[in-house]
């Protein structure tokens, strides 16, 4: 699966795109990412799966794209 980081989260992860082995749900993904990037845990962000915003833990499928997005600041 593909994991995307945007805005100031890229300062934490040092990359905007990660290929990641299959993981069952978004909460598990968050947990393993928190281990690898502790600063992510205190960062403000929302998540999207395949471009759709999610509010709660979401089941993932092979090939999904998961995005970590800090507060928007366009315009």
């Amino acid at each position, binding site marked *: 699966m593909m994991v995307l980081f945007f*805005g100031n989260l890229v300062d934490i992860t040092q990359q905007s795109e990660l290929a990641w082995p299959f993981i069952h749900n978004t909460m598990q993904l968050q947990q393993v990412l928190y281990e690898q990037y502790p600063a992510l845990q205190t960062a403000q962000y929302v998540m999207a799966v395949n*471009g759709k915003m999610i509010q709660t833990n979401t089941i993932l499928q092979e090939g999904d794209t998961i995005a970590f997005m800090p507060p928007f*600041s366009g315009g």
Partner: protein
Amino acid sequence: MKEQPIKNFFVAGPISPQKIAESIAGHSTKKNIGAHSIFLGQVRADENKEGTVQAIEYTTYQAMALEQMHQIREALFKKYTLTCMHVYHSIGLVKAGEICLFVFVSSVHRKDAIAACEEMVEAIKFKLPIWGKEILDNQKTVWKENH
């Protein structure tokens, strides 16, 4: 309802006043239009405690931004009586004093054009996955926040 192609509204770098003039001139053939409401975002040379903003570098999650914009447009066309609505947002570097956002809404009557333009600007600020990084005069950077 027919499926509309999702149009890329991102523009590399600043939006030129000339482009705005051409957009306006292009609407003179639509003779049922009575009102155009236009919003322009311009990059400010804000003085932070860290330094003075020289430019903003915009990035986006483009696939998601295009899909979101498609839905915002559909909702506004349902809510208001509009003739047309054009949006352009910069991506990449835009210097202080340059235009980074151009929203252009046209209608038969002013009230629909004005209300839809304002709603579109709010949606762009808070619903589109776009991020601005302020580049300061001392080469430091600060992530922009919207209010």
